[in-house]
């Protein structure tokens, strides 16, 4: 089947999608957007979290056909196009884009919230949503908001630091 969907602001028509495919599979394998991760593919780990019409969802639990005509925003769509130099990256594929990282992404990087990084995209989308809704989250609110995102490396301490830092920076930027 064909699926028409807006992904990171760009309107796309994806062909040859088999009805059993998830949004996660379509993003990763058909659209070249592997940033959303496949850690459990059953909605337990949160590593595949994306915005669907502005609401964070586990993209592994969304059937491809369900996104027809809707809007998806992935971790790849959080950075602001054209100005990534701020992140200080000088090599690799990212150099081509020079996008400016979202403050949540930058805070995860600086706070040491990234180790293996497999949980990171999902946690960043979920944290991004939290700060949008609640610009000054308490620790209890951060924990509650991120309770559906598993991380095996960090013990979550630096993730809390990252979210606090991102919230603080976003608040001072406004």
């Amino acid at each position: 089947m064909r699926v028409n969907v807006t992904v990171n602001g760009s309107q796309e028509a994806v062909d040859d999608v088999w009805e059993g495919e998830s949004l996660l599979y379509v993003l990763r394998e058909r659209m070249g957007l592997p940033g959303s991760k496949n850690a459990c593919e059953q909605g337990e780990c949160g590593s595949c979290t994306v915005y669907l019409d502005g609401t964070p969802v586990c993209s592994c639990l969304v059937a491809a056909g369900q996104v027809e005509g809707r809007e998806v925003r992935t971790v790849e769509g959080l950075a602001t196009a054209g100005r990534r130099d701020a992140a200080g990256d000088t090599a690799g594929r990212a150099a081509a884009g020079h996008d400016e990282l979202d403050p949540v992404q930058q805070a995860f990087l600086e706070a040491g919230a990234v180790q293996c990084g497999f949980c990171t995209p999902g946690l960043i989308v979920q944290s991004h949503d939290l700060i949008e809704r609640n610009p000054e989250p308490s620790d209890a609110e951060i924990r509650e908001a991120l309770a559906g995102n598993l991380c095996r490396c960090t013990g979550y301490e630096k993730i809390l630091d990252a979210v606090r830092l991102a919230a603080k920076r976003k608040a001072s930027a406004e």
Partner: protein
Amino acid sequence: MRPENRTSSTAPRNQAPIKSPGHVAAHVGPEGRGRVGDSPLRPDGTLKVAGEFAYSSDLWIDGMLWGATLRSPHPRALIRSLDIAPALAVPGVVAVLTHEDVPGVKFFGHDGTLDQPVLAIDQVRHQGEPIALVAADHPETARRAMEKIAIEFEVLEPVTDARAVIADPERHKVQPLGGITRHQPVRVGDVDAARAQAEVVVSGDFEVGMQDQAFLGPESGLAMPSEDGGIDLYVSTQWMHNDLEQIAPCLGLPEERIHMTLAGVGGAFGGREDLSMQIHAGMLALHTGKPVKMSYNRYESFFGHVHRHPASMHYEYGATADGKILYAEVEIVLDGGAYTSSTLNVTGNAASLGVGPYEIPNIRIDAYGVYTNNPPCGAMRGFGAVQACFAYESMMDRLAAATGLSPVEVRRRNAVSQGSKLATGQVIESPAPLADMLTRLEAMPLPPAADTSDIRNLPGGASQTTHGEGVVRGIGYGVGIKNICFSEGFDDLSTARVRLEVIGGEATVLVHTAAAEVGQGLVTLQAQIARSELGVRKVTIAPADTTVGDAGSTSASRQSYMSGGAVQKACHAVRDELLAMAERKFGSTYGQLYLDDGYVVSRWNGIVGPIEKVLGEDVIEATREFHHRPTQKMDPETGQGNSHTQLALCVHRAVVDVDTELGLVKVVEMAAVQDVGKILNRLSLEGQIHGGSAQGLGLAVMEEIVVAGGLVRNPSFTDYLIPTILDMPPMRLDILEHPDPDAPYGLRGAGEPPTLSSTPAIVAAVRDATGKALTRVPVRPEHIVA
């Protein structure tokens, strides 16, 4: 295909450290100049937060096929017949392979014992054992075709009781090597004579359940036929050269025709030390002549790697009335499952570290690793030391109770220090300030009582199982000791190639090793070392691959020590060559040259010039191997010998609130004191201690692969629970730096020790709150309310 990331470090930026608003001071920054001791940003971090880092499961190339693995549903069965024709007939299927298609040797094993079939031959010995492979144009096609492979099994009664194997190894052979994998005794002094003098005797039986590494990135990778008739392999692993030694014979190829590159690794924790899909994807690629991707889903991942050995242990200690231990009698039984994997060395660790960091004059330990039809077990963070630690720390608490001493005091009275002998007779030659660490831990402030006005602070949290009634606080302590680097005579080495040249007018270093970055931050550290040793700002870390020499495994907390040591050594060689070049180019009158902050300087005449001036168009490259000091095998009868390179200590205090009516536990806070010799990167180090402590928390109160009759009952993240951000409490850290003179920079491996001591500390705290004996981890609600 998407290229492997070439990670690069940038010039350090000066930023003020940011103060955390949290009530526990967590450390953020500073980057400093990006040298040893600073906390520069991860060179791969920008890609990771942008979602652009290429993990092994992200690899994609035009025209690739998807591989799938048919696995045994039975823990033990004979294969009477196997018909692949129905699978081959499925449209989209390109190949179906069985053991008959293995091009070379049909067995592999990562620790030198080649007992694991690439694909089952005439029988299966554990649930999930690979039997056949399918390649198809869509992953779902491959999975559906796989289900059409027709197999007739003759199901046999599985051997699942590890103790029964010890009682009668011959009757319980599950494979040709069968029975007992290793029995390692440790004998010190005269236990029977000491028993007669003991004023206090305590004993206990303890169990540790099977824990899963539960790394988030699934086993996955891409195999591509190469022009020389070999294979290009992009996989996530912990030790490429060891993989290569196993893959090449099975694929019937010389090692030089298998080109391995490390793809992005989504965590490891020991679970990637054994092969998973490497040989299988290689077989499918060679057979079809096409690139083949394999990526396990979470269900398959639970069968796709080895786990932490479950343990059953009996301990008896005798002591004086004032708490000085006189003897220890210990039996440790580790269930290694169907194949050898790391069981030989896990058993060795359990034996050598069986009584922990305590001075005990008379010891009798018998540690056994055995074969059963349970899932194979091997390496996981802590590697044999974790299981023993739960038992010996539980014993220290029993001894405290029996002598009336506090848990901290009884540990202090028996604590090792520099110069003490371990159970193996090995003298601890570098600082081991355990008594001081305990004193510091005890002095750390305690968290306030739970604020019951917010129900989220209570056990059960928002599920509203209590408003404070029945909730009791407990405090517990745990101590652990872990060997760092490979032990028992293994010639442990790492190799680094360092290249210095001027690029764009700036001295630039390229560091190339085969060391696996699995998340721990080795890429950051390698760049820090190069900056420190050569005084440059710009360092690039080349992709890890097998075109450079062996780096050894990313395990045993060894890469900072070993690959860090190799990078330092190669940098020194580059530096020496640079100084010699300066002599040649600028004349010997300069004499006595040294490198200072990017400048070549003469002791007599001052600055010769910056590196850029000395180098000009020249390139300096050096490849060096680093070995740690030799170790010895444990004596097979007495366990004696200097078997370990380095030993590391961590101590934990846990504070818990327990709903004693429902058996729910909330860990309120963990505090840890760890001696790391030298802090190389505080930000990464704290992350290791937090993460290791979290895995210990998981083992304490939730994590277990439940196996019944050889069958795994909970192979999913729905049923196998790992700690969430709600489970993991704030931590207080006190990191000590007592340098080890034998180690690079004086460092001490740091990744594993916190995984040991956090588990017994939490269980001790739950015991303190409930008065229950709690002899098994993970502790479940029914153990508390029983």
